[in-house]
């Protein structure tokens, strides 16, 4: 936030508001996932859960640059994207538990949360599966001239899927307003990305003529600044862009992935958590720059934890869908 130095009071206030807002959003994601972990380890959550903890700055920074009616597509590790785009934790938890009040009436679960109200086209359990969808949303936006932008979130593992190259080619040919956001958390499940990824990642979109940038995925302001620039560019007809965000996932590929020593060291995990944590980094900056004090941040955490607990309770109390629901929504 060195950019704040010398700026007008109004700019500082805006920056403060935004920073606090980013902080809040990141903590919400972190504490949402804390509850998911808890539900899962208490065997209260069915299926698999892929936590976003450690990667919060990306979803928050990118979605911070979007309008409510801009589109996103998300992944199996999608809770962060949903929340950052504005979803309600209550309805998300209800979905995670397969309850009637969930975003998808319990039919989608953790990997399929979708919400038209916030432009969320849906998480996707097929790695790379949403790349066409996001590009298609951008195709609509261009055709309908409604000024919207689509963001496609995916992990670096999805770089293995040929679909990405097909749709990047289309997006560039047709100058579609789509931003491809690659979250490189270093692992495809249990395999280091260097074993699965040849060459230079950003050279791939660049080969199709797509503007590509790399950003520190642990620095929410850096992510936001880059996303804002690329989204504005796309919105004003500048065409697609690619944003590589370097990050780390704190826990297992999914909650059940406990013994990770065979593919990565505890030391590596520890270093990221202590030295590169996006929430701590922002918190320290806010305090150092006098934009917030420790008490405010701690108070926020307490308040959000209570919100998340209440959301879980709501979800726990929500009924399962009635049996008759099972055959509904197969066809529109």
């Amino acid at each position, binding site marked *: 936030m060195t950019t704040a130095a010398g700026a007008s009071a109004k700019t500082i206030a805006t920056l403060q508001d935004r920073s606090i807002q980013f902080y809040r959003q990141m903590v919400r994601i972190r504490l949402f996932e804390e509850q998911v972990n808890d539900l899962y380890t208490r065997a209260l959550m069915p299926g698999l859960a892929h936590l976003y903890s450690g990667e919060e700055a990306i979803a928050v920074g990118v979605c911070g640059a979007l309008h409510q009616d801009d*589109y996103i*597509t998300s992944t199996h590790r999608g809770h962060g994207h949903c929340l950052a785009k504005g979803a309600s934790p209550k309805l998300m938890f209800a979905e995670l538990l397969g309850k009637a009040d*969930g*975003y*998808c*009436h*319990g*039919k*989608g679960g953790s990997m*399929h949360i*979708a*919400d*038209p109200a916030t432009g969320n*086209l*849906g998480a*996707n359990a*097929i790695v790379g*599966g*949403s*790349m*066409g*969808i*996001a*590009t*298609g*949303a*951008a*195709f*609509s*936006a261009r*055709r*309908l001239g*409604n000024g919207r932008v*689509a963001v496609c979130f995916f992990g670096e593992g999805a770089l293995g899927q*040929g*679909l990405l190259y*097909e*749709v990047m*080619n*289309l997006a560039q*040919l047709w100058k579609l307003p789509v931003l491809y956001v690659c979250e490189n958390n270093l692992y495809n499940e249990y395999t280091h990305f260097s074993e699965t990824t040849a060459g230079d990642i950003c050279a791939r979109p660049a080969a199709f003529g797509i503007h590509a940038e790399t950003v520190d995925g642990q620095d929410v302001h850096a992510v936001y600044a880059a996303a804002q620039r690329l989204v504005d560019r796309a919105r004003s007809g500048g065409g697609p862009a690619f944003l590589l965000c370097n990050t780390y996932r704190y826990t297992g590929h999914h909650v059940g992935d406990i013994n990770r020593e065979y593919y990565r060291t505890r030391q590596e995990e520890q270093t990221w958590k202590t030295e590169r944590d996006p929430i701590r980094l922002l918190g320290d900056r806010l305090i150092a720059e006098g934009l917030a004090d420790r008490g405010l941040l701690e108070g926020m955490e307490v308040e959000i934890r209570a919100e998340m607990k209440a959301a879980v309770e709501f979800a726990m109390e929500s009924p399962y869908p009635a049996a008759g629901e099972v055959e*509904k*929504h*197969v*066809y*529109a």
Partner: protein
Amino acid sequence: MPDAGMRELTFAQAIREALAEEMRRDPRVCILGEDVAEAGTPFKVLSGLVEEFGTDRVVDTPISEAGFTGVAVGAAMTGLRPVVDIMFGDFLTLTMDQMVNQAAKIHYMSGGKWKVPMVLRTTLGATRRSAAQHSQSLHAWFAHVPGLKVAIPATPYDAKGLLKTAIRDENPVIFFEDKMMHHKLKGNVPAAEFTIPLGVADVKREGTDITLVATSSMVQVALGAAVLLEGAGISAEVVDPRTLWPLDEKTLIDSAKKTSRAIVIDEGYGRYGVTAELASVISQGAFFDLDGPVVRMGAMHIPIPFSPPLEDLTVPTEKSVFETARKMCAKA
């Protein structure tokens, strides 16, 4: 021409007319595919459309079947009504993830929140000397997948009426056209607007001794066989389901009940395919009225050979249907 409102159109002309009418009616309808614009597709089915609707709505794509099908899924979710053109049905193999894991499931997974109103037009059929990778009839795969609808018209009239309905449908519809029919098959089509609902079989010829249930290319074969049978004193009823899903089970079953004998004829592979389903439906529904088992006639269970005399052996013919039917009627 007895009826002033009737014109004789080829199958291809009927398709083109349906598209043109729907594109005039609804600006959201657009076409995506390889060589669909100036070339009007290699089959020349779309000739003239780009001149009327422009390259914004009749969009030539790269050779990226998965990519542009995915784009259509996303575009359909966000306000357009794309009609995707997959030149040869064999190339559907490249679109399976987009059609089956995405298009077919999005409405259900989202608990009814998103819809995917798109049509995928493609071809089926052998005897064109196109060999194994350009001759398959893969419609059974799609009928197997809940969330998709499958239309498989056999006449210009049905093609036009069903395509218009498919474009207006809120769900993904796969529309199969027999390549050999495009320019060879002519039929009466009213000049006035009409549509045909999905899920209503059509009795193409009434009869009393045996039911021939036939699809797509096999309808003409069945009708030809019925003429031969008439010569042998056997009255054959020809029933065309027109759509595989929804499937008008009742019409099929009622006909079989009436005649007490049935053959099902489809150009796809018989094994684990359309003939299996139709035969099962009839067997189950008309069991106690049948004189003998339902007989299935499909493509031989082999990759389609190039060599003309070999290829001609692989598909049911008027003669083979006639002989099978005569034997069945003789027995009783």
